[in-house]
């Protein structure tokens, strides 16, 4: 990330200037496309050089596809693929007479691809203006202009005593912390609780906090990573939209422990309700004295700002997320420097996933020992939210224990597949997670056990593919996503994912040795987990379903 641009942004931020990205997003909302006039205006308002603004305007999905009077976005996430094999995408393109990413000449309708809307429980999903409709008949309703907001399932805890989903919090954890604990004591408690990051990497939250606490900086920040871009996952969506106070409490606790006075939440534009619902909750918390110059009457000050992204999967990576928050192109930066040393506006910054931060009030409320005991059969502490796709009989978000068997989760919790279909394979934890074949369903849901199968806990999304899924089509689907979402910074990912997608999308056999050499280059050469992780599901398919991949003899 350019130090000069970050400094320009910091100075303008202190004067109350908006980011270039925010100005460009407004222009898109206002007139459906970005003109050079808009770019000049964004440069003037934000202080960013015109060229840099141009770079931003060519990076984010939301700024690229021109919008018609009616803007239709079709979800091409993995759950929607598992439901229809992309038949809904083809049907919409044909019926609307509009290709993906295009606008009809008369400006009446535009169609764009979006990944993913977080309605994996009732795929396929389509966003029509600001209405997200999903489930059987959605394509017909788009054509008849009768779309309606699809219902969303209520999250359920299967713990004897719910922890994360304990209901509306009374700020007990924060009260305990600011009245009885020194910041160092809270940090020690979180370290003792061994809270592992819930966003995919599993990094210990306490260690991250300690780096930031010890780092020198005139200010420090807490950033909640709400860019839950993993197709098939809608866990953070549920937390941000239904349990926003839990996130607010977790961020305030993090701020208290680290010595930060401000927090930011980066929400996804694919979840249009997240930002307004969080802003309402933040305003409520200010009124209740939970946020502001004196948190719960103490001398600790903390407040929160909500910022919405603009469509980019890689922005879920922490350095790209910080670039996006500052209105820059959402590309990855090499670490070090780590955000804990040099993050937002060049200051020490903790970036934690939304669910990770939502675990902190639970730790503060019940203490490290009881937090550990939430998953008694596992070395991993705390509970985990998982979610299931539409192929299951009871899709939704569930609070479960680590170490629970995948079979128990799929059959007892989610009710098995609809219509007596069988589980051909499961993708767990997002697009960078391996694929578990149906015959390995007795694997426990936990970090080490899934890693042994080339899979991961990841974000906790569980997408089932039934016997109708063609595995070569799945590989092509995943690599299309991987190539389209590559930020373009490091060479192996920028070119390699494109080449891997090309190998599968041609009607010719795939040369296995060449494919494996390419996958190795991605795994070992890429700068971040996107290029490094996209080979994992392809490796699984090579291991478990080679006969379906159309490999050369």
């Amino acid at each position, binding site marked *: 990330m350019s130090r000069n641009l970050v400094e320009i942004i910091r100075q303008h931020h202190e004067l109350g200037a908006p980011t270039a990205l925010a100005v460009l997003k407004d222009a898109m909302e206002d007139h459906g496309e970005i003109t050079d006039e808009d770019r000049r205006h964004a440069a003037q308002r934000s202080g960013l050089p015109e060229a840099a603004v*141009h770079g931003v305007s060519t990076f984010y999905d939301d700024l690229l596809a021109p919008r018609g009077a009616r803007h239709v976005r079709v979800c091409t996430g993995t759950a929607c693929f598992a439901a229809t094999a992309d038949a809904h995408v083809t049907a919409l393109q044909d019926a609307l007479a509009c290709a993906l990413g295009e606008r009809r000449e008369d400006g009446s309708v535009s169609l764009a691809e979006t990944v993913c809307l977080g309605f994996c429980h009732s795929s396929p999903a389509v966003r029509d203006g600001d209405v997200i409709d999903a489930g059987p008949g959605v394509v017909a309703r788009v054509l008849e202009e009768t779309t309606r907001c699809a219902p969303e399932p209520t999250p359920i805890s299967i713990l004897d005593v719910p922890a994360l989903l304990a209901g509306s919090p009374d700020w007990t954890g924060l009260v305990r912390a600011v009245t009885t604990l020194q910041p160092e004591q809270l940090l020690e408690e979180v370290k003792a609780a061994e809270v592992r990051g819930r966003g995919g990497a599993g990094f210990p939250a306490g260690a991250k906090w300690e780096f930031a606490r010890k780092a020198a900086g005139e200010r420090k920040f807490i950033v909640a990573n709400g860019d839950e871009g993993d197709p098939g996952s809608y866990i953070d969506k549920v937390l941000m939209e239904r349990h926003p106070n839990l996130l607010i409490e977790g961020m305030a606790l993090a701020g208290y422990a680290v010595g930060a006075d401000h927090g930011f939440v980066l929400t996804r534009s694919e979840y249009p309700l997240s930002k307004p619902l969080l802003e309402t909750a933040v305003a409520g918390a200010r009124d209740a004295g939970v946020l502001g110059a004196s948190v719960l009457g103490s001398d600790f000050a903390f407040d929160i700002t909500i910022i919405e992204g603009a469509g980019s999967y890689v922005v879920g990576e922490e350095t790209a997320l910080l670039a996006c928050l500052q209105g820059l192109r959402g590309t990855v930066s090499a670490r070090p420097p780590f955000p804990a040393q040099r993050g937002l506006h060049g200051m020490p910054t903790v970036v934690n996933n939304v669910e990770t931060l939502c675990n902190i009030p639970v730790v503060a409320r019940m203490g490290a020992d009881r937090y550990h005991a939430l998953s008694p059969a596992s070395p991993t502490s705390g509970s985990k939210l998982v979610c299931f796709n539409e192929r299951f009989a009871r899709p939704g978000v569930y609070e479960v224990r680590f170490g629970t068997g995948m079979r128990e989760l799929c059959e007892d919790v989610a009710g098995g597949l609809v219509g007596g279909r069988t589980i051909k394979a499961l993708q767990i934890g997002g697009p960078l997670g391996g694929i578990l074949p149906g015959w390995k369903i007795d694997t426990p849901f936990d970090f080490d056990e899934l890693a042994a199968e080339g899979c991961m806990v990841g974000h906790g999304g569980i997408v089932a593919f039934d016997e109708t899924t063609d595995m070569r089509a799945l590989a092509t689907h995943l690599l299309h996503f991987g190539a389209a979402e*590559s*930020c373009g910074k490091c060479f*192996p990912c920028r*070119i390699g994912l*494109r080449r891997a997608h090309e190998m599968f999308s041609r009607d010719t056999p795939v040369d296995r040795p060449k494919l494996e050499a390419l996958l190795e280059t991605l795994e070992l050469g890429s700068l971040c987990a996107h290029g490094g992780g996209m080979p994992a599901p392809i490796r699984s398919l090579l291991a478990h379903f080679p006969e379906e991949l159309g490999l050369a003899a």
Partner: protein
Amino acid sequence: MRSMLIEIDGVRAQVAPGTTVLEAVRALGGDVPTLCFDERQDPFGACRVCMVGVAGAPGPVAACTTPCRDGMHVDTHDPTARRIAAATVELVLSELPEAPAAHTELAIVARTFDLDVSGDVRWPGEQHAGEHDERHPYLALHHELCISCGRCVRACDEVQGTFALTATGRGFGANIAAGLDEGFRASTCVSCGACADTCPTDAITEISLLAMTER
């Protein structure tokens, strides 16, 4: 802070804290090929061509962005690191519609990996479309030769402080633009030539007086 003891290809050396592996290798007279690195700029870590082996690390690391640690053992000939770097250069050659000129850094780096710049590649596929911007009197931009190494953008930002250039697009479509993509002339470019000087592929070149008279 006290200096650190490291070992590179069996040779021990004392380095100051904050020294990168690439700096240490070069200080010892060794070399690791690079494409996105320019010693006048902050390391970028994009090209992944400077990969080296480090004892105990799970895989090769980029020498340009990896700080030396006390007791570190670096192997610049690590076969895995060399294989990944060579494959990455091969990928770069596959995206260009024409072979890079022999004098360019890209062609020189390709030769160090024994790659034939105009030969077959293992992963053929879409190439950059030709697009020439020659509206500026002294600077020519051939977009199809751009490999998104970021050196021109950083030269303009970190060396010249002009901010006339930007990275554009994303993924395979990544490229560069001057100003609002209206060419160097309409941008804030001051014609310093730092971008052309650092470009490793001749995507940006200075149009010399000699070339003008030849036209």
